[in-house]
């Protein structure tokens, strides 16, 4: 983990077809540098205090530093502090050099050589010790100890930043799992690692594995129901969170929102390492607003017990939902804009902010226009706090993908709902279907006759061997 790559938003698919290339390029740039000011507040200390000072927190800080130059010195000095609490010398040096680059020479921070020497010596000693132990366990063929040995080594490599080796040890430990609880443990270890790496493609595999193991553990645990259930709930909550994050990471917003709604309250430490409760509130709400129907919002989001708990952590999210439910879309968009700094500076959310905001806006436009027969584009723009040009462009895109059934009077700037004459529509459809079926029938009948007469395309004779060659089965 030498330097963090600048996150490029995956916005290719939402680029407006009609917008010239130039604007999309500039908008890309603005997405990578986030402006924090009075209108777009962001409290770094409050934000980062939600997390344990571990590697993933440092990753968040590094991301903030790369996205917002104004916050970079503060974020990086914090990152250096955090790195000193850890054991990864490489990470410390990276943080420090990044900090130096940003602040220049006058505010330079001295290299803590003593810590460096001490830590790397300790790392070497720990590593040797763990490896010797593992060797010994393997020699003794004690399964449980071998598993623990691999786990320990996995943890060790993880804290020292060697994720590939860590993953290898975690995976290796699988062979020595003797019961399903061990499998669940292994899966959780791997999941935490994958989530830190933001490697979402494989998350679902381990979630399913863990869920299967959890179910297998279920029947046996039934006897001591009261004791085992909270434990199981904890694991389930973690798995749900992992699933939700991976779906979000893969831009599968619809499923992600359902996954976020499911997450239980007790995350057992992951709420300080993987995602803070306020993060869950933000991710879940954004996804839900972007994909849910109004009815679903009410039933799944507002009336969900577990998600309300998360919503309490981030009061402005509730404000947004309330405004949305009251159809005050202007307020929704204003709030989204106001907190855009918070959203854009979030490591996981950054690349989805633009897409989600656009989806929320589009959905709101469709909702707003629903009851009208015609509406002036000016008043539509007014209701959403957009410019008339923006409004027209959004409306046109929505009409073209079929979300709004209407047409734009570009001359008078009016959006008119399509006036449907059901009788004519029916006639058109009936005659069209009739003709289609008649022609389909004719073609099918002829085909039937061909088959009856066994006039069938046969493969050339010499091709027979070739085909066998191509398809070994």
């Amino acid at each position, binding site marked *: 983990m030498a330097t963090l790559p600048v996150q490029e938003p995956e916005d290719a698919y939402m680029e407006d*077809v*009609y917008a010239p290339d130039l604007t999309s390029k500039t908008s890309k740039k603005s997405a990578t540098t986030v402006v924090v000011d009075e209108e777009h507040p962001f409290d770094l200390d409050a934000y980062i205090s939600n997390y344990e000072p571990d590697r993933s927190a440092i990753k968040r800080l590094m991301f903030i530093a790369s996205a917002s130059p104004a916050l970079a010195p503060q974020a990086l000095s914090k990152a250096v502090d955090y790195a000193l609490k850890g054991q990864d010398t490489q990470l410390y040096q990276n943080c420090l050099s990044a900090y130096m680059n940003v602040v220049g020479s006058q505010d330079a921070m001295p290299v803590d050589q003593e810590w460096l020497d001490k830590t790397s010596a300790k790392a070497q000693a720990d590593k040797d010790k763990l490896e010797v132990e593992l060797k010994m366990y393997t020699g003794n063929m004690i399964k449980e100890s071998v598993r623990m040995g691999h786990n320990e080594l996995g943890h060790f490599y993880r804290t020292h930043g060697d994720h590939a080796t860590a993953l290898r040890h975690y995976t290796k430990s699988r062979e020595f799992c003797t019961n399903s609880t061990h499998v669940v443990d292994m899966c959780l270890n791997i999941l935490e690692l994958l989530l830190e790496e933001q490697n979402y493609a494989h998350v679902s595999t381990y979630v399913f594995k863990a869920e299967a193991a959890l179910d297998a553990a279920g029947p046996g645990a039934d006897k001591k129901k009261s004791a085992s259930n909270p434990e199981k709930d904890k694991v389930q909550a973690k798995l749900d969170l992992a699933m939700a994050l991976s779906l979000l990471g893969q831009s599968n917003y619809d499923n992600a929102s359902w996954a976020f709604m499911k997450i239980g309250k007790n995350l057992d430490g992951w709420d300080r390492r993987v995602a803070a409760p306020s993060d869950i509130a933000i991710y879940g709400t954004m996804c839900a607003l972007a994909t849910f129907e109004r009815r679903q919002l009410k039933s799944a989001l507002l009336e969900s017990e577990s998600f309300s708990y998360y919503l309490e952590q981030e009061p402005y999210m509730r404000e947004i939902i309330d405004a949305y439910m009251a159809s005050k879309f202007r307020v929704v968009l204003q709030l989204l804009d106001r907190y855009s700094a918070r959203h854009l500076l979030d490591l996981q959310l950054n690349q989805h902010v633009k897409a989600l905001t656009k989806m929320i806006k589009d959905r709101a436009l469709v909702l707003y226009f629903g009851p009208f027969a015609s509406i002036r584009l000016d008043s539509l723009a007014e209701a959403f706090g957009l410019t008339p040009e923006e409004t027209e462009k959004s409306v*046109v895109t929505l*009409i*073209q993908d079929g979300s709004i059934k209407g*047409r*734009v*009077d*570009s*001359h*008078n700037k*009016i959006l*008119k709902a399509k*006036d449907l*004459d059901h009788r*004519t529509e029916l*006639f*058109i459809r*009936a*005659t069209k*279907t*009739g003709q289609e*079926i*008649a*022609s*389909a*029938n*004719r*073609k*099918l*009948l*002829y*085909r*039937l*006759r*061909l*088959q*009856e*007469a066994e*006039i*069938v*395309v*046969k*493969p050339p004779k010499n*091709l027979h061997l070739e*085909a066998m060659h191509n398809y070994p089965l």
Partner: protein
Amino acid sequence: MNLASLEDVVTAATTVSDAATLSMALKAFLKRDVAEPTLASMLANDQDPLALLNPLENTIGYLFILTARLEQSGSGPGLTAQIFSFVEGCSTNLLAWVPERVNTFVSRLLRQPNVREMLEALAIFVQRYPHSRDVFTAVHTVFLQACVRYRVYQVALPVLNNRVAQIDKSIYPITYLDNLLYHYYGAFAFIALKQWADAEEFLEMVVAAPISSNIPSAIQMEAMKKLSLVHLIRYGTIRSLPKYIPPLFAKAIKQSSYGQFAKVYPAGQVQQVAEKEAKTFHADFNIGLVKEAIDMAPRWKLRTLTKTYLTLSLAEIGKEIDMADETILRSLVENMIQIGEISATLEGDTLTFIDEKPNFRPGDIEKALADAQEQCQKLAKLDQAVGRSREFLQKALKDRDTGGGGGWAAAGDEEMLWAEEISAQQAYL
């Protein structure tokens, strides 16, 4: 019956009323070395044997002599007249006895120097030859191939517009290639005449021809390429094919240059992709269709605008469909209004789109109903025929013996599709 000379042949042709005996005798006569020159010659009294024969009543004799003459002497004005009187007058029932001689007749006809005239004669013959006009014969294919070769598409239209629907292998033997080629060449003709709907149907027939393995015919693949381009021209996008067409065609197209082209059509960089893939298009002889599709692209873009806007100025349209020259744009818009591709009015610089409201007259409805009823009757008849057929009864019997279920599953997709079609038809009614 033993025929020795032309006189015998003429006598037999006029007197023997049993077609089976006559055709046997004539076929036997053909085995002689001098049969063809003899048949082509004049009678001893220098009389034209064909003058003694009636094309309708003595179809077989007429055919044998006429066919011989095509080969022996070049066709003069007299021969052409005889050919026309034969094709217009011949008896379908009698021709069914001598399919081999018919094939010879057709192939010799096409070797005549005045082939265009001959094609007209053949067009008439093709429609008279089978016992029902919708029966498909190998002559259809030969005829169409020649039409495409000599680029006389208009002549083929009466034949093509009468869709083939039946096959009678016992009288008119055909192979799968005949069927594929007929529709492929038919599509050629329709493409040349820019009758896209018909071209689409014919190409689809080629692609839809039943295949026994996973290996389609090369003709089918070529047809699929053309079909995808015709779809672009007709609908602005590649449509999904009927369910009974194996998915391998759609898959193959998706990965090909045609798929690339369709992906950007009509709003994207159509021209650029076409240039990039030009080599393939040239190699497949599809560059003409591609050009046609490119020409249609602005029209498709404009058509999508009608769904989005009520009014637009020409300048705005130009911006949307990427056409800078206002005079070209104006003439394009005017043309589209004229031929009814868009319903709109152009006043000054403002185009106002009008909602299309087709008027249905009672007559139209009645015609639609009558068509549907006719279809229904046809299907009912077919249903009965299937119900009586040996295969069906055997299967049904087996089905009953095994307690049902299995029989249907074994019957395969075809019947299932068929059942769906029928129920769809009923639902429509």
